[in-house]
């Protein structure tokens, strides 16, 4: 029961306090891209969740073996990229063998949900916190869920942010950034942040 509580706590922490987009700006460009279509949000969200959770399982053991090595932080990206690549290739092979229709549909864009800053960033953050297995899992799920929530917010605001009411130069990416900034400020309030003005 304690483990489950730990899992949920870490997931909540990763979702709201360490939100992938609003607090860390991990995979912002992918989020902007995915927010245009409703189908992309679910597809990308699912892909990212799967890759982060499976890769976190493996990195937990790798971290256990190599964390004390002096140069681990230098080779860490290479090791993690290798792990993510193995998960990616294995999953694609399984899909190609058992679900060829889905494989054909996703093969053009599947790399977007694997090789992005959200996945690697989640793995790097997991390592810096030196937590136990359930925290690793919880953090992975939380980061992916946080990404999903952020993209959903962006999707909801997308139409209004691209309206003719916005000055032409700010339409699209610039106003989206400002919107994310305001949302980020709201998320920061959850941690009790104040600008020192009050």
């Amino acid at each position: 029961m304690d483990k489950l509580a730990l899992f949920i706590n870490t997931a909540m922490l990763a979702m709201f306090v360490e939100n992938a987009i609003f607090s860390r700006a991990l995979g912002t460009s992918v989020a902007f891209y995915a927010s245009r279509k409703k189908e992309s949000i679910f597809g990308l969200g699912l892909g990212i969740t799967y890759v982060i959770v499976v890769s976190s399982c493996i990195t937990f053991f790798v971290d256990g073996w190599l964390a004390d090595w002096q140069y681990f932080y230098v080779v860490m990206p290479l090791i993690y990229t290798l792990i993510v690549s193995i998960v990616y290739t294995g999953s694609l092979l399984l899909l190609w063998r058992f679900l060829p229709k889905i494989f054909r549909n996703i093969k053009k864009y599947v790399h977007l949900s694997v090789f992005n800053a959200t996945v690697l960033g989640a793995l790097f953050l997991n390592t810096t916190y030196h937590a136990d297995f359930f925290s690793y899992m919880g953090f992975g799920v939380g980061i992916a869920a946080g990404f999903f929530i952020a993209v959903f917010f962006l999707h909801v605001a997308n139409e209004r942010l691209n309206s003719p009411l916005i000055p032409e130069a700010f339409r699209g990416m610039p106003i989206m950034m400002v919107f994310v900034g305001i949302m980020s400020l709201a998320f920061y309030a959850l941690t009790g942040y104040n600008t020192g003005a009050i």
Partner: protein
Amino acid sequence: MAQAKQLKPEMTRKSDFKFTRDLIDGLAKQNVVLMTGIVNAPVIIAATTFKKGVVIALAFAIISFLTIVTCSFVPKKIVYTLRVIIYALVGSVYYIPTVLLLEQIFPLTVELIGIYMPLIITNALIFSKTESRFYLESKLKMIIDVIFFAAGFGIVCVLTGGFREIICFGTFAGIQLFDFKIAAFESPFGGFILVGIMAGMFRALYNYLRNRRIRQNSEEHNKAAAEQTFRSSTESGGKQVMIADKSDTAKEHSNG
């Protein structure tokens, strides 16, 4: 025939090589932070001081350039779904000497940048721009193009870092300037809002300059066209007058 059709776009891209256009493309028209927004996490979160901006810009330039050039030799026969793995692995291999080198020059700064340093290996210049732009060009053009794209990112990153250092800490490159501080711009929300406003202003300026150039070009074109029409009309008018004169003299001669 099919082969010729496949080669055609590449040939046209290779043939219309213009140095100035490429320079502007990477620096301004397709700036990866302010115009397309495909690489922005390091600028928004990590570039909070001038020094950090410089380190991120250098790491980005070295890793992206070496990875893109090396991966251009990867056979295109391998499907992109699998080729992308090679790109990621090559990027993370180049990360090792880059970070060790930068650590020698800026020991503390690299540590302060944290996870945003290794995240450079997953930048969109390597994963997206390679397929949509760089690998469609000739090798020389690709190298120049990558340099200017990296420079475009670097300039924005350093300027953002410097500006944030001034308004957040009242210092520039560690030198105390004044006591006025707005600490909020150091945080991610400050970074998002600042980069968003910078992007909007940059786009507005770019559009203004582009429209002005188009207007000037069209005015010049119209003027040249008008001059040409006037010249051709006067020349043909002169010829007609000459012909008329000749016919008149002929008539006079016949009458005489």
